[in-house]
């Protein structure tokens, strides 16, 4: 019989927390790229692009992340692709993050004063040039605090990857709990780990928002 000391529990959770961080980074990078495309489609002059991206956001924000995970995990297998939990979780979290980031960033683009669009149009800039030189640089500044805030949602979202068997912080907690039978202690420590990851980012987001308010 192996007995677990407190340090054994903490050490194993620390090792597993690397995967929570890694998966969060993958989801943020993937979701950021796809989300930027969604944002461009959302404000594009083309009506079909706008309708399509609006529907995409509606579906992503109107369905549970867990279902998106299951559909990626079981759906891709239908095409004969053998997906590992890591791949399925990465794809699902990328889709999830892009649906929210696309909408957050669309809001930031909308916050750029209307006159900027009109001025750049009257200068003869194309849509791509307007975005590149006029709108995005201004929207970017507004986008930093809410984007930072959404990172917290991504980190918490990675906990669901445990359900399709990916061993990150939550799954490691479950495994350790099955060996130690100390759920109060183990899940308490798991929660504190998430808190230690997320709270500084929440504080940063709030501080950035205050600074932006002052700057205005």
């Amino acid at each position: 019989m192996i007995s677990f000391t407190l340090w054994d529990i903490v050490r194993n959770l620390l090792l597993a927390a690397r995967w929570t961080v890694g998966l969060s980074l993958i989801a943020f990078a993937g979701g950021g790229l796809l989300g930027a495309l969604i944002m461009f489609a959302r404000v594009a002059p083309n009506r079909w692009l706008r309708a399509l991206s609006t529907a995409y956001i509606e579906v992503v924000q109107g369905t549970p992340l867990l279902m998106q995970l299951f559909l990626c995990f079981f759906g891709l297998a239908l095409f004969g692709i053998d997906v590992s939990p890591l791949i399925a979780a990465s794809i699902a979290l990328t889709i999830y993050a892009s649906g929210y980031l696309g909408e957050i960033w669309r809001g930031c683009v909308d916050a750029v004063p209307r006159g900027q669009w009109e001025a750049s149009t009257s200068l003869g800039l194309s849509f791509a040039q307007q975005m590149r030189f006029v709108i995005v640089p201004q929207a970017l500044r507004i986008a930093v605090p809410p984007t930072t805030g959404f990172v917290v949602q991504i980190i918490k979202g990675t906990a669901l990857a445990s359900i399709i068997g990916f061993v990150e912080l939550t799954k490691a907690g479950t495994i350790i709990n099955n060996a130690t039978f100390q759920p109060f202690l183990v899940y308490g420590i798991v929660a504190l780990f998430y808190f230690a990851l997320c709270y500084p980012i929440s504080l940063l987001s709030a501080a950035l928002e205050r600074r932006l308010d002052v700057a205005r």
Partner: protein
Amino acid sequence: MTYQLHFESLSGYLDVLARGAALTIVLTAIATVAGLAIGVIGAAARRSALAPVRALAAVYVELIRNTPFLVQLFFIYFGLPSIGVKLTADEAALLAMTVNLGAYATEIVRAGIASIAKGQIEAGLSLGLSRRQVFLHVVLKPALAKIYPSLTSQFIIVMLGSSVISQISAEDLTYAANYIQSRNFRSFEVYFAVTAIYLVLAIAFRALFRGIGNRVFARR
């Protein structure tokens, strides 16, 4: 792709899906009401004159908002029995949903209250209203009207997030999906259909909340 989709394989399980959806709806409805109540109390506590009350409310909000709902759920369902609090899966799910929503609602209502101009409160007090009357009639109702849209988005986030309560064997809509796919092995069809049901629920809830909002916060 050689795989043939067979959605008709779900036809024998409509009652299972209906029962699951019913639990999801009922838990969401109760958690919404209870969570909003906690939100109002929590927001009042965050403005309390007593520093320990303010601190307690802040710790509650930050702890919940910076940890995953799934871990909160496991802590309540698996962790609390070891200190003598035994809950059924449904009770634990409802408690977790309420506690979770309560923290977000506290923060949302607090932001609404902060947006009420100080002059309004002073005007209320100078009219001879008590502090409680000012809070209820001058501060709370306009604050709620202002933050109602973000509040309803949060209600829907809780409904969608409740899909993980199937992990502690609460028999909600996702549990129904897991049950069905374990019997007919049509996992993609089942999860696709259930995802569509969640989408319909989210749209229906949003319409319902908008209707309630129009009625309660009608412009006079």
